[in-house]
């Protein structure tokens, strides 16, 4: 990407940002994290418990909001996209600008909304800061990944009902159905050594990866569940973290590159 494209990306990002930041949905999303985190603190729980409760919000809510926001946003930016495409703008630069213009405010809403209450209330132990940092990283990864998947759907399908529907199905699959499948596999093949297949299955789902990444950082091995325990046993905490982060990065780059490729070939 040369400087001209980068410049174009920056400009499109800026137009997008102006538009997105003013949206009531985006503000509401940030305020939601702020209120939930603050309430968890006020109900008398310590920072470790707050993080544990937040974990489920992060794992379930972030992917859902991102697939819904991401598809709807790209569909409603269709006019803007078409206008930009009548101008001397590279498609790749336009795609990057559109993607960053949504995914960065979404990530910021989460980080700021969650971070402020922690700054106000403080944490009990210094090690909790590291756990908080990992939780923020996992949340940002999920934001980037599911926004990319949403863009992929919205680019692939011109029909918005179809695009949004498939994106929500994807969320349902990753968040709910997939765990059921893993449990089914464990149940059905209980007589066999399952560590390796289960690890492979975990690597194939970004929500599970984020969950493993988070669980490796809490001192609650009992709550880690099968996949978390296997991960720790198999890789150890440090290597497990690195591997899950690497797999998350792969989960981000593949849909993003595919979406960009589709966008570059699309007929408008």
């Amino acid at each position: 990407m040369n400087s001209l494209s980068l410049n174009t990306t920056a400009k499109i990002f800026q137009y997008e940002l102006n538009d997105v930041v003013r949206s009531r949905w985006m503000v509401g999303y940030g305020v939601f994290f702020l209120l939930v985190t603050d309430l968890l603190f006020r109900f008398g729980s310590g920072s470790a418990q707050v993080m544990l409760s937040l974990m489920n919000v992060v794992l379930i809510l972030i992917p859902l909001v991102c697939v819904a926001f991401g598809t709807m946003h790209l569909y409603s930016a269709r006019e803007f996209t078409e206008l930009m495409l009548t101008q001397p703008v590279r498609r790749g630069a336009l795609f990057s600008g559109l993607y960053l213009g949504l995914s960065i405010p979404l990530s910021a809403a989460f980080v700021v909304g969650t971070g402020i209450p922690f700054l106000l209330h403080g944490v009990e132990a210094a090690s909790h800061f590291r756990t908080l940092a990992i939780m923020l990283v996992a949340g940002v990864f999920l934001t980037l990944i599911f926004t990319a998947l949403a863009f992929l759907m919205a680019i692939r399908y011109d029909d918005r009902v179809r695009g949004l529907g498939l994106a929500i199905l994807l969320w349902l699959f990753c968040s709910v159905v997939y765990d059921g499948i893993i449990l089914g596999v464990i149940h059905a093949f209980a007589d066999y050594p399952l560590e390796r297949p289960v690890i492979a299955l975990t690597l194939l789902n970004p929500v599970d990866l984020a969950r493993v990444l988070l669980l490796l950082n809490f001192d609650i091995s009992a709550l880690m569940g099968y996949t978390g325990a296997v991960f720790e046993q198999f890789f150890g905490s440090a290597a497990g973290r690195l591997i899950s982060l690497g797999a998350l990065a792969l989960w981000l780059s593949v849909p993003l590159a595919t979406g960009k490729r589709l966008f570059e070939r699309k007929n408008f």
Partner: protein
Amino acid sequence: MVDISGLDKSFGKLRVLRGLDLRVERGKVTAIVGPNGSGKTTLIKIILGLARADRGRIVVDGREVTHDGLQRERIGYMPQAARFPENLTARHVLAMLQDLRGKTRDRDEELIDAFDLSREMDKPLRTLSGGNRQKVSAVIAFLFHPEIVILDEPTAGLDPVASSILKDKIRLEAARGTTFILTSHIMSEIEELASNLAFLLDGSIRFSGPIDELKHATGQTRLERAIAHLMTGKAA
């Protein structure tokens, strides 16, 4: 100026363009004519890079059009039905396009005055009538002094006053050497504006050349008759 050769384009099983060849001369107004669904808009979108051809090449001024869309630097485009970001005002959109091009070069805002659009410029585009949106779209097409202007049914949806203002602008810029490609179903308009004509049928060009030549070849004095002649397949 614009050289198109062997253009193929299919949407699924539907073959829209079949080995289309066309040469558009510099400084001339070329009208693309053809029945509905003959591929006019697809052809225009491929020249602009909005749609991708399956095969074939387009050369603008000796430089092959690549897929980076940078040929649009010198092209002004007015689509059949303009779509804008609904919440922005026309003034905002114009400023955005200027910023995007990053040029200090002066803008051609003649049409804003001619259309008497200044009062509409500060309203959100979604509140503008269809005709006024078309006017904004025409303003954008001419805004950056393009060397080539592509107009897809430019006067459809414009009232007679606005339509003549736009036609005057086309004639003025054509006289200054701008190349025009336009589509229209209004024969009188084509006779008024265009010197060259390309007749598109079933995805390929059946005639391309000066309008006088077409009339001569078909033995007709009126363009409408001459084209009817082409459609029924009797002409060369």
